[in-house]
């Protein structure tokens, strides 16, 4: 039980996927302007991340390893993720058109969201069992959503701030992220 607990804490707070591992920066900067959109993005990425984590684990364990074709890992994983994203896109388009519009270009971009592929590869590198893969993916998804929500909350306030012209937009977002990342460094003594 303790092992699982450590995985959860370290994935959400200590090794936060955005703020300390730098995976998934594009949606983190791109969709974090509105709280509602970032909640939707967090949800979509979380779903893809967990399902992709389980699927890629199964493919690695039952297909790539027995036949010694581990070098096909990158290709196999990216194909799994791409088809999953296509699926999520179709579901959202049918059942939640407003969210589909709000996410816009960032939805197909989940395919090229390094967080999804990154977590899938880390799962394999750490040789987790299926249970740990699920917990690990879920915690990283939660960490991603947490970072995204915090960021969009700050950015909604920043809109009223008087920012020097050349720092507006991405530069100030990066500096904000730096301060958040510093705050998250404080968690590193937790375990």
């Amino acid at each position: 039980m303790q092992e699982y607990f450590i995985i959860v804490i370290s994935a959400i707070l200590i090794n936060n996927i955005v703020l300390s591992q730098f995976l998934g920066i594009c949606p983190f900067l791109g969709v974090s302007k509105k709280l509602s959109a970032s909640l939707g993005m967090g949800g979509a990425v979380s779903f893809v991340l967990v399902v992709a984590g389980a699927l890629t684990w199964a493919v690695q364990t039952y297909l790539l390893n027995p036949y010694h074709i581990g070098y096909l890992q990158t290709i196999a994983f990216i194909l799994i993720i791409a088809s999953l994203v296509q699926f999520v896109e179709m579901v959202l388009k049918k059942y939640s058109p407003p969210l589909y519009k709000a996410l816009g270009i960032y939805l197909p971009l989940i395919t090229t969201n390094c967080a999804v592929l990154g977590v899938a590869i880390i799962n394999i590198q750490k040789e987790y069992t299926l249970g740990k893969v699920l917990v690990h993916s879920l915690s990283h998804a939660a960490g991603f959503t947490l970072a995204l929500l915090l960021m969009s909350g700050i950015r909604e306030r920043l809109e009223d701030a008087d920012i020097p012209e050349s720092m507006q937009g991405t530069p100030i977002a990066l500096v904000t992220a730096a301060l958040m990342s510093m705050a998250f460094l404080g968690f590193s003594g937790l375990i």
Partner: protein
Amino acid sequence: MSLINEITKGIVRENPLFRLVLGCCPALAITTSVENGLGMGAAFTGVLVASNIAISALRNIIPESVRIPAYIVIIAAFVTMTDQLMHAFTPALYTSLGIFIPLIVVNCIILGRAEAFANRNPIIPSICDGLGMGAGYTLALVLVCSFREVLGAGTFLGHPVLPGSSPAILMILPPGGFITLGCLLGFLNKLQKKSA
């Protein structure tokens, strides 16, 4: 003349990292030392040029509706090759870049160039475009690396440059990456406003 233009546009005018703000993830993660930046830049350029060639050569064969999956498979194949080559010939670099080598496959710049350039231009200009974008990205990486390595570790390419002063370790920790890139982007915006 236009071929030279294809090369130079990627370095300054359309620099993928500074002007288009694409490919941020590796630019923040592996830029802790100049050596990493050069290695990542080289691997990235190799994949970009190779995938540009392949996609440009196949541009009339790949059906429009399945082009994105097709591009991703092509890119993934070249990334796998690069991964194996680096594992064999540069083991130290392979270890320090770690997970970010397979992650080249999801670098938005490569898919972006395939979509925006290679699928509508012949092979030679596509090679030039790949070289230019690769050089621009490598330069940008090295610039970010230089700040972080000098300030954070007090060295440049492993040689000590700030004797007698203790380095600010924060700069090679994650926050340093965000700060460096944010300030560089702000500074470049300012420069561009002045010259415009």
